């Protein structure tokens, strides 16, 4: 009774692999935009495909939807091979970045479209459309045309239209990127709530790390058509597998170092340690700006403990961002940014002030310099 993952024949339960991509490959002419992509999305999870533009995340989503044919590879949903199935036979709900609502139909007609294609009765359609519009709080706009709606309302219509057909998988292609910041926060919560309420397996394409971290069960970080790392938001943030992941997700300071005989890392004249041993002689050290503590009064860096790294630094610039204040330090020729929450009674600092920076060995990320 501890785990509710009792598997019955043909019925997947929450947490089992559901949407599987195996050896996916996509070439346009000689250009390979996706190379050997393997991914298992679990039943009921919200997974983000995160990466910069051109990383292949949208191509991957469109291949799942059947709008692009893969050059090689296999897509299965609940064990059923859908690779050769046309988009209209795949039973997937797709929300486009531009919403792609039918401009000549009312909101209700837009939402009803997928149900009409499935040949449902008029009464069933009316019922389901009303329910779907209720879910996104748009019942009162059912008879409007899409052009009479705001961006956020159109977005919710697109979501209702994709969900009303009760698809096996929901695909979201940067659904929030055309909304303003405040609305984006609201929609984030709303999409996550609906997704969890319905328990629908969802693939979410985004270039926004905050969206990926705050909404998703797991994140797939992609770069140049390859998967860099798959993990929970916590894993991706705290234990990035590659320097790209470390710098793409969250902000980070980077500084070059050298491995020494005793396993420490030398940066300039300072020695630091990391929880993970360096695998190469030339290394790249990364530390998150808000994990660094500033000691303005420390006389020296002598008290090098077992659990903390300490380095002497000189303040070069201050940036006030409102909720945080960024101190730019010069550390042996490299720039280190340190973030602190602002307080009303901020002690003012000047360029050239000396300080000792310290951070936990745990927070010291080390990668090979050529990684």
């Amino acid at each position: 009774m501890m785990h509710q993952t009792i598997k019955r024949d043909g019925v997947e339960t929450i947490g089992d692999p559901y949407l599987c991509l195996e050896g996916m490959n996509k070439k346009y002419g000689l250009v390979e935009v996706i190379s050997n992509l393997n991914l298992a999305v679990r039943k009921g999870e919200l997974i983000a495909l995160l990466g910069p533009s051109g990383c292949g995340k949208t191509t991957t989503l469109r291949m799942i939807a059947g709008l692009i044919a893969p050059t090689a590879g296999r897509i299965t949903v609940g064990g059923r091979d859908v690779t050769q199935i046309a988009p209209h036979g795949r039973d997937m709900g797709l929300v486009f970045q531009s919403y792609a609502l039918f401009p000549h139909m009312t909101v209700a007609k837009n939402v009803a479209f997928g149900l009409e294609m499935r040949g449902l009765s008029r009464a069933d359609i009316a019922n389901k459309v009303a329910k779907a519009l209720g879910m996104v709080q748009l019942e009162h706009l059912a008879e409007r045309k899409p052009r009479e709606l705001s961006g956020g309302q159109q977005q919710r219509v697109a979501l209702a239209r994709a969900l009303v057909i009760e698809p096996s998988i929901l695909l979201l292609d940067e659904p929030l990127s055309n909304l303003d910041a405040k609305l984006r926060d609201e929609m984030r919560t709303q999409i996550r709530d609906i997704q969890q309420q319905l328990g629908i397996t969802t693939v979410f394409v985004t270039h926004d790390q905050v969206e990926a971290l705050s909404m998703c069960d797991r994140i797939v970080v992609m770069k140049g058509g390859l998967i860099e790392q798959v993990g929970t938001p916590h894993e991706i943030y705290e234990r990035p597998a590659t320097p790209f992941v470390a710098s793409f997700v969250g902000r980070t300071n980077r500084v070059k170092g050298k491995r020494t005989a005793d396993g420490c890392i030398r940066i300039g004249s300072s020695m630091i340690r990391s929880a993970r041993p360096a695998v190469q002689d030339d290394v790249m050290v990364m530390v998150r700006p808000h994990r660094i503590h500033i000691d303005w009064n420390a006389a020296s860096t002598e008290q090098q403990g077992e659990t903390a790294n300490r380095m002497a630094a000189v303040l070069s610039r201050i940036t006030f961002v409102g909720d945080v204040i960024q101190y730019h330090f010069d550390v042996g020729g490299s720039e280190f940014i340190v973030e602190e929450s602002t307080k009303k009674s901020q002690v003012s600092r000047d360029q050239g002030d000396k300080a000792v920076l310290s951070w936990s060995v745990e927070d010291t990320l080390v990668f090979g310099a050529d990684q």
Partner: protein
Amino acid sequence: MTTATFDMPVGAQKSFGTAGVAVALLLPIALVNAIGFILPVLNLARMSFNEALPGGGIAEALTAANWTGLLHDSFYIELITNSIVVSLGITLATLLVSYPIALYLHRASGAWRTFLTVLVISPLLTSAVVRTYGWIALLAEQGPVANVIASMGFQPPRMMFNTTGVVIGLTEILMPYMILSLMAGFGRLDPKVEEAARTLGATPFRTFWRVILPLTLPGIALGCLLCFVLAISSFITPKLMGGGRVFLLATEIYDQAIVTLNWPLAATLSMLVLIIFGAALAVYSRILRMIEG
């Protein structure tokens, strides 16, 4: 001592300036239209109430005889209906052959699209007379088209000097206008919307019927209006390809004006064509309102 100033307020001066410029810019075309179009049309309208004398004379009068004569003469009733039906047929044929081309062009991109667009427009660079003679050569009794049909074992139909020839010739001649109008009206057709329909379970056929076709209706309406107007007023192709055996409004106007020298009747028929234009325009704007509404 006070000095009177005659300066106009700045705002008034400025608005007078823009209005003045607008009038100055619009005046030439307004004059050309008034002298070259409105006055002659008014003259035609007036002439349609004059009396025709035998031998080409015109008697100043105010009689509706020309108009009532048209509506009581079975030849003219048939001529009018025939013209409208043939023009509608040509419009439909032009639409059917042009639509797929326009849709393909709408989806094409880059240099390929430019090349194809130039290809579509290029027939407009040749005169309709030359193209009509080309069709006469192709469709003649022992012409290539007839020979191909005969070689397949069929009796080639008459395709020249009858309505079939006129329809074939005008359909081809009007295609560039139809394709350009369709493309101009395809603005609302976003490929993403078609994709949305596909992912919602619509087959390609139903996607076309429920999404692509409704979204391209404005283009269809525009193209049909233009082609109908051009078809019903075309003269050269029906004259040459009809071989004097196909009677349409434009050819009849020519005959009445140039051959029979019955100018009042020619004027009446011309006014009738204008009325048909007006009706077509009314139908078009009504359809457009239905689509947009």
